[in-house]
């Protein structure tokens, strides 16, 4: 990937804020600015209740801000209708959740195929794309396995495969290692590191300073305020 391409801003927050209407109103995210460029690997850390999930839901277009602007791939999302936001979720964003969210009765490949159900992917090409994505996360041998026969790390890597199968411009990971022991955490983080090396833009939300330390750039969130780690003097 070219440098110029890497410096393209994938997402840009301008005074983005979210206040939950009360009573009492809670300003979960104070108006904040943040720019993430293509190919960046960003960790967002903070204590419980600091607003991490609130930010993730805004970034994932699952929630709407009460203030400011959010540009994703050049789209001013404030002006998009629900159907266009769905389209961005289906094509431009890949989610990885703490609790995997795999369908227990479906094979790894079928779980990955689900990501291509709504985004107009031709039916005939889905299976091959799913197998490619599973190979990419090192699960070539578990293509037909059910999630309940897999380790936690394998399950989360299936979820990663599902998130990247549409080649999204942004991978959003919410506590991806929250349900994993250290060995499994390690395999998942290694996987994210490899994807970063391949040029994916990744945002990881985590409690775990060890996980955050693997990222190229760390942003702290405290009581709804975004603070660049450098600004705190680490």
């Amino acid at each position, binding site marked *: 990937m070219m440098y110029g391409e890497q410096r393209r801003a994938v997402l840009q927050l301008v005074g983005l804020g979210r206040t939950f209407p009360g009573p009492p109103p809670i300003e979960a995210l104070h108006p904040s600015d943040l720019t993430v460029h293509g190919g960046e690997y960003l960790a967002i850390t903070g204590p419980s209740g600091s607003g991490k999930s609130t930010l993730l839901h805004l970034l994932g277009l699952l929630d709407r801000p009460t203030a400011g602007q959010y540009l994703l791939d050049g*789209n001013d999302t404030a002006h*998009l209708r629900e159907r266009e936001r769905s389209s961005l979720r289906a094509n431009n964003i890949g989610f990885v959740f703490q609790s995997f969210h795999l369908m227990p009765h479906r094979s790894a490949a079928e779980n990955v195929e689900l990501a291509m159900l709504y985004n107009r992917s031709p039916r005939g090409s889905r299976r091959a794309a799913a197998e490619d994505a599973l190979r990419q996360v090192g699960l070539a041998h578990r293509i037909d396995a059910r999630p309940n026969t897999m380790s936690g790390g394998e399950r989360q890597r299936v979820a990663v495969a599902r998130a990247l199968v549409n080649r999204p411009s942004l991978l959003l990971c919410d506590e991806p290692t929250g349900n994993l022991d250290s060995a499994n955490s390690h395999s998942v983080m290694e996987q994210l590191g490899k994807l970063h090396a391949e040029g994916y833009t990744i945002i990881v939300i985590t409690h775990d300073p060890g996980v955050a330390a693997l990222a190229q750039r760390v942003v702290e969130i405290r009581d709804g305020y975004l603070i660049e780690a450098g600004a705190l003097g680490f």
Partner: protein
Amino acid sequence: MSRRQSPRLPSTRLGIRDAFREALVGGLQRPGRAILTMLGTILGVGAFVAVLGLTSTASGQVSKQFTVLQATTVSVVDRAAADSLNQAGSADNGTLSRPPISFPPDADERIQRLNGVEAAGVWWTVPLGDAGIRSSRTGYPDGEGLKVYAATPGAIAAMEVTVTAGVGLDTFMEKSGQRAVILSNAAATRLGVRNLQMQPAVFLNDLPYTVIGLYSDVRRNSEVSLGALIPTASAVRDFGNPDPGQMPATMVISTRVGAAQLVASQAPLALRPDHPDTLVAVAPPDPHSLRDSVSGDLTGLFVALAAVSLTIGAVGIANTTLVSVLERVGEIGLRRSLGARPRHIAAQFLIESLVTGTIGGLVGTSLGVIVVIAVAASRHWTAIIDPAITLPAPVLGSLVGLLAGLYPALRAANINPIAALRS
């Protein structure tokens, strides 16, 4: 600022094949539950098909037994004569003490004027003495057991007697009281009558009657096809009034199809405006009321039961679908994060309940048809399975499924994806 959709953001969609596949996979995850869910629909649709099939099968039997001939035959009986018999307490009356005929002399013409009457006339069994009918005055009683009937030309026409040789009894012979007789082929054989050229005579209570014709087939009052027929005027003059102990004077009326009930209700008054109660008209049972009495009560009951089963089936599907929505909140959140819009979520659950209802409807229809065939076979009936009922029956199941799925589908579509993903 423009609200137009960016061409770079094509709307997400859920293809129809994908939607059905997702719904089927979702439904088949718990086959046991799916079958239990279908049970109400299976019972409802099955009961519906079975009840309607059995009803039409049963009424098919009724109409098979109930011929057109019966439906167009009305008889009017001389009740006054029958009542007088009861008062006398005995049939052993002399000729003179037998009651007179209640039918007026112009009975045939009077009835003929009624709408729907094709032919009509009075007839009775002639009360012959011990001599009966025989081929010679003094010879062997070869006609023993043969019955002689008095009948007007109208009655002979109404009975639809087929004359095979010679001539029938006409109005002239009736009016003039001629001693003429026509023999059934059976009677002619018994009495040795072959050639009518010779103007043979047979003897009724020793009175000679000229054989002028032979007949075979008698459609109405088929007992007549084994006897002999003479004019009523001759019968009354030579042998007296009818003996109610044997058979009172009776009018047979052949009507057009569908007119029997009306003719029967009008006949006594048309014949005897002064004393209509002396005559009793017997109409064939109304084919509709006959059918209705066979099926009416039970059909209503069972259709009501089928409707109850269908309602229970709908509630069952609605309940299961709702449970499945609540169990799969996480899945709904995931699908929303993968680009599914609320309508796609609704479609998935609606199709799931639609498929459940349709399969229930198909199974129920098959079971209903099997029940109809089994019952018909066990009673040696012809199973009548109306395609107009059987073919749309599975659609009833689909409809139940669709209605039952509406509320759960709306619930699923309105689930907040953030809350769903947290679960």
